[in-house]
């Protein structure tokens, strides 16, 4: 049994079996990460380049740790100190790097579809670490892993994705994944931040009233307001957003049950989520970060297993 794809470009391309395989392998890697020696020699003859054309803290560190714990050789590339700043095209940059015998590319890019374009032109396996507003597959996988770990199984789970749905690759990857695994999905937030076609296209629920969304769900995945991607005013102020859509303790106290709180980070405290919620016992935000390394180890391992040395 192996993955059905050569690259990990998006959850859209994965089958339910692929997702299960990644999650079950990730749980074995999570056990590895509890050992006195956390490093395994699995990818010792594999060279991986991390191409980050867009800022990242968590994802880049998480990938780099995953690669190093698997004993891969790691090369880091950030656009600010590279030849891309001198006008080199994406394909030229990558081909130059690959000619130095690199086996796998982990790429983040602000343009949606950049890794898909690359996949058509190069042989090395590509992992999408976030492309524009399209997908962020490893985030959705680690979210699913964390939900499964906390609540047992994904099928039948009610998950509300709350906030800036429009500009979120995390939202789209999560929707694809949760639908494939049989969970129920609702998106909630201001109408200006939810694409109008989404309900129909993805067969999900849309709820503009945040309190109703919270009352419905088992898990609230709260997304960051992505001010850097908003080139027009979509709500009046951050303070007003917090009052109308922020996840506050008062809102959660009104519910008849406990719900699990998630956030892919980075958190804007006091905007989409209040500090006392983010730091509460119901929040699994730091578990998500911890699980990210195991899930990425799983993706790297399973994709390497698909490539032959010849």
């Amino acid at each position, binding site marked *: *049994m*192996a993955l059905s794809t050569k690259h990990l470009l998006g959850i859209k391309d994965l089958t339910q079996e692929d997702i299960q*395989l990644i999650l*079950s*392998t990730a749980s*074995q*890697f999570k*056990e*590895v990460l509890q*050992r*006195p*020696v956390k*490093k*395994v*020699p*699995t*990818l010792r*003859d594999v060279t991986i380049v991390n191409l980050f054309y867009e800022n990242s803290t968590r994802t880049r560190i998480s990938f780099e740790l995953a690669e190093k714990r*698997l004993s891969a050789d790691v090369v880091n590339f950030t656009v600010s100190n590279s030849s891309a700043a001198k006008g080199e095209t994406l394909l030229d940059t990558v081909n130059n790097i690959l000619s130095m015998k690199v086996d796998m590319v982990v790429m983040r890019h602000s343009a949606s579809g950049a890794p898909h374009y690359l996949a058509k032109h190069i042989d090395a396996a590509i992992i999408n670490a976030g492309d524009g507003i399209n997908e962020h597959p490893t985030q959705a996988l680690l979210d699913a892993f964390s939900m499964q770990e906390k609540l047992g199984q994904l099928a039948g789970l009610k998950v509300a994705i709350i906030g800036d749905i429009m500009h979120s690759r995390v939202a789209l990857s999560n929707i694809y994944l949760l639908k494939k695994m049989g969970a129920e999905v609702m998106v909630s937030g201001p109408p200006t931040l939810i694409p109008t076609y989404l309900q129909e296209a993805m067969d999900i629920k849309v709820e503009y009233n945040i309190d109703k969304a919270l009352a419905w769900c088992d898990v609230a995945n709260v997304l960051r307001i992505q001010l850097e991607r908003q080139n027009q005013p979509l709500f009046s102020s951050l303070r007003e957003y917090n009052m109308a859509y922020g996840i506050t303790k008062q809102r959660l106290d009104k519910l008849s049950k406990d719900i699990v709180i998630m956030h892919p980070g980075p958190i804007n405290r006091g905007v989409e989520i209040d500090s006392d919620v983010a730091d509460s016992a119901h929040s699994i935000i730091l578990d998500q970060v911890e699980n990210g390394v195991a899930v990425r180890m799983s993706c790297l*391992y*399973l994709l*390497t*297993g*698909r*490539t*032959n*040395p010849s």
Partner: protein
Amino acid sequence: MCKIQRVSLSTLKIEKKGVILLKFNGMTLISEQQLPSIIKRLAHQILETYPGLTNAVIIGLQPRGIFLSDRIVAALHQELPADQVVYGKLDITFYRDDIRRELHLATQTDLPFSIEGKTVILIDDVLFTGRTIRAALDALLAFGRPSKVSLCVLVDRKPSRELPIQPDFTGKEMIDASPYKVKVRWKENDGVDDVILLVD
């Protein structure tokens, strides 16, 4: 020793090879009647070498070695109080040297005790090239520094070894290089307890 081990296939003509192979396909190496005695003997040999299992732990190798280690541990429980038998399971998938050739799926590792300074008795079903045990030794060292590691296997395919690794406790030894796959079948997994030869 069973018959098939004396058939030296390299000396046969190519066209005859297939016929011979098919003739012995499915042949029993260890029968259902023999298996319990072998397991009991292995348990006794372990106890003879490590009386009372003092400072010793048993570790079965996932996925198929644990069927044998479960049986040996059950046999040890007949001889010792349960709390003297320290038993864990180790998956070695991430320590293999053949990821580019074949993808193996990992199974659960369960070692809820320290192996630091202990004698570790590794248990696996078939010792073939020795590469699995090489990986197991690497995997083991991630958990600490045992004072000694010994190895117990049900079937030792000695002539096929590719690394200098030998068992300390052996159920049955094959003396010729065999073109067959040695399949160990367990009731709880395969519906029957025996070891047979299969055309690979």
